[in-house]
């Protein structure tokens, strides 16, 4: 027998064969026929993490890349495998064991067709979507529409990352107004270097995710911070806040507000000698245990933390590094890990 009828293997054996293939090989196999495509989820593909960057790159499990290319006539390398994908009507070139390119006349249309095809084929969710203003000419409206298409299919997006630079900063208010419809459940990364503070506009989040990570946000005010009360993780880099706003947040936490908060970090210029949460001494050099906390895929730690206590007895480590302009608050939990760090003294 020259051929081996793979679909006539016992169920478990077929599953084992499929499990030996990576996502790109599974995709190629799926192009054989509809019957072949139907067995793909046996490989355990429902657990795949499908993420996309702008409309150019789709990655699976952060390793296997499906690039969306502009139609071209020639192969990139003569040795590469090229075939026509009849199910989604595009040419595909396998450029490496972990990378392939599909070619489209309209990349934006191709991207949407391709990612939803992969999501259906592998029966997995699109877990993460990111867009940067520097590499994408995508408008925020297109981005939001696509986000809504995702949510229409799977109810939520776990991680969303969006960058507003000089090119698309005017779209920021529109994004903020509509961002709650995207139902980001795990982490929202915002890079808003191009967005200016606006005296009369106060930005608030209607449905904040569990983790909120922000970079360069002069528009971010005390009211915005208060709208993140249900967050587990808040990491703010250069927001439009001042020392007393941080003090107020810690006081609110002590009184029982921000009860879901497990970690808070903020980078700004602090006032020397001013207290935060009633503490003047915001470090304890004798505390040599680095407390490490993992929240989803994010790992944070505090060394030399001073202990602060909430009214209900819940404790947290706080640490202000004046020179790094960084304040950290890590709420104690049994799941925290510890690492002993020796004090280095210079004679």
């Amino acid at each position, binding site marked *: *027998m*020259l*051929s*081996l*009828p*793979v*679909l*006539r*293997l*016992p169920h*478990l*054996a077929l599953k*084992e*064969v*499929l*499990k*030996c*293939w*990576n*996502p790109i*090989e599974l995709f*190629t*196999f799926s*192009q*054989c*026929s*509809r*019957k*072949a495509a139907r067995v793909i989820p046996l*490989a*355990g593909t429902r*657990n*795949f993490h499908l993420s996309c960057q702008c409309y150019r790159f789709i990655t699976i*499990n952060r390793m296997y890349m499906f690039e969306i290319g502009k139609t071209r006539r020639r192969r990139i390398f003569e040795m590469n*495998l*090229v*075939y026509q994908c009849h199910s989604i009507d595009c040419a595909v070139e396998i450029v490496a064991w972990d990378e392939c390119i599909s070619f489209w006349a309209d990349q934006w249309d191709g991207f949407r067709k391709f990612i939803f095809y992969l999501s259906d084929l592998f029966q997995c969710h699109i877990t993460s979507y990111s867009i940067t203003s520097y590499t994408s000419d995508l408008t925020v409206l297109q981005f939001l529409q696509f986000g809504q298409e995702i949510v229409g299919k799977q109810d939520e997006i776990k991680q969303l990352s969006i960058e507003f630079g000089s090119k698309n900063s005017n779209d920021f208010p529109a994004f903020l107004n509509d961002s709650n419809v995207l139902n980001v459940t795990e982490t929202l990364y915002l890079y808003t270097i191009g967005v200016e503070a606006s005296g009369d506009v106060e930005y608030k989040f209607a449905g904040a995710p569990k983790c909120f990570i922000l970079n360069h946000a002069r528009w971010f005010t005390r009211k915005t911070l208060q709208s993140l009360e249900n967050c587990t993780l808040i990491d703010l880099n250069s927001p439009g806040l001042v020392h007393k706003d941080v003090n107020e947040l810690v006081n609110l936490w002590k009184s029982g507000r921000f009860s879901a908060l497990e970690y808070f970090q903020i980078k700004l210029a602090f006032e020397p000698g001013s207290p935060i949460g009633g503490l003047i001494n915001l470090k304890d050099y004798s505390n040599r245990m680095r407390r490490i906390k993992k929240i989803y895929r994010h790992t944070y730690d505090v060394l030399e933390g001073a202990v602060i206590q909430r009214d209900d007895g819940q404790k947290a480590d706080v640490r202000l590094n004046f020179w790094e302009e960084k304040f950290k608050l890590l709420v104690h939990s049994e799941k925290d890990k510890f690492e002993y760090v020796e004090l280095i003294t210079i004679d």
Partner: protein
Amino acid sequence: MSVENAPVVDVDEAAIPVEKKMYYRFESNDKKEFRVSELAIQQSETLNRLVEAMGYTSEDVENKPAIAIENIDGKTLKLVFQWCEHHKGEAIPVDDGSVPKIVEIPEFDAKLMDIDNGLLFKLIWAADYLNIVQLLNVSCKKVANMAQGKTPAQLRRVYLLPSDEEDEAAKRAAQEAQDPRAREVEEEFEERKRQGGNSFF
């Protein structure tokens, strides 16, 4: 076939602990008999349970008839038992959930599986039936490796996969062969489904 004339799988005596030195006799569906060590049998969950349930003594295995394995032929069973003897005493692997699954094919296994695809197909069925986890792993890995560097059109030939058009043609042919009245009913049902009707009746 008498035990004397039976093809006996080579056994590495030194590797078998003294207290485990018992050989079971199995017979394929084409009446070929094999003697297999107790330790080698442990690679097969199915056979291991079977011999445990039988509770044979050393005398029983000699005096009672060989245990029949009715859906595996001698050629395939010989490969299976050769594999089991070579890997006796090894731990049964547990799937670590890595994607893709990492499976190394040892040199012995590669040589053993240097066979035509028909026999490889039978070997996989046997490994599945006898529940020999690692033999199933390596044989399926060999099948998976056949896909390397192939286009979907080439894969269809390697794995004997009909195209969608061929599948539809086969379905039509099967319908043609059906009773014409049953076919009419089925076509009507399909038509109603297309029109979005909830109920046929």
